[in-house]
């Protein structure tokens, strides 16, 4: 059976995603914090730096933050899916 490049890439993507997830059991003591936060923490702690401006608005909780991140991904996915739908329709109507 000849494998299509798309299939190979999609399978690779799924495998690598789940390998990353599997890491969370392989490294049980890790905290899985964000590197962005760690970078800022280093500045705050080692240099006693205080940010001179605060964000105009902050999501009031982790839930609301994840809501907005999910929304960001959803909007993006919607546009991508819509576009591929158009391409597919166009291709089929040309046949």
């Amino acid at each position, binding site marked *: 059976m000849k494998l299509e*490049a798309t299939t190979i890439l999609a399978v690779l993507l799924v495998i690598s995603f789940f390998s*990353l997830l599997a890491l969370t059991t392989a490294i049980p003591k890790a905290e899985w914090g964000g590197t*962005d936060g760690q970078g800022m923490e280093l500045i705050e702690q080692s240099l006693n730096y205080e*940010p001179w401006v*605060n964000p105009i608005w*902050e*999501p009031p909780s982790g839930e609301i933050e994840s809501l907005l*991140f999910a929304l960001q991904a959803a909007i993006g996915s919607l546009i991508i899916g819509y576009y591929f739908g158009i*391409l597919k329709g166009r291709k089929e109507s040309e046949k």
Partner: protein
Amino acid sequence: MHIAEGFLPLEWSAVWYALALPIVGYGIYRAQKLRERELGVMPLLAVTAAFIFVLSALKLPSVTGSCSHPTGTGLGVVLFGPSITAFLSIIVLLFQALLLAHGGITTLGANTVSMGIVGPAVGWLAYRAVRRMKAGLLTSGFVAAFFADLMTYVVTAGQLAAAFPATKGGILLSFEAFFGIFAVTQVPLAIIEGITVALALKLLQEHGVAVEMWQPKGVSVSEA
């Protein structure tokens, strides 16, 4: 790679803004030129921006026990080159700064330089280099995304090191510290981003999109 609001001294905010804005402006100009050439480019531009939206929203665990996120700029690099990618990146960064308190207005210039400009520019150079060596589109796309992603975080480490040199040991020592936080975590994510971009390019191609026709003029390798 998001330097948080207020985490760069004013003079550094200004420096990065001064570097970022002309290139973003040029990206807008180029996008308009492409639109005049062919209106059909607009949906592809939207999809490229959407791709950045999706990938930069995904925080993934990595080998270091920390999480980080891909940048999503690799597709833009291959389809449109670095300047348009800078324009699309600043839109996403602004969204995240205003609604997610990720990054900030004072650090928007710096974050645009890392994620939107230098990362993509290095990705673009790497893409052209391997493409010239007759590498296929998918391999080259992988390379572009890998370097755009990884370099973004190297630049962030450099920006933080420049603004916050260690009292003993100076910029190099603090670069090492920031590099240590960002770089290793990013490698697996850069690989995943590479695979995603290769897949996206393949799908676009299968659906009849001439993926290399919008690249900056004179450097397109597809016609060579």
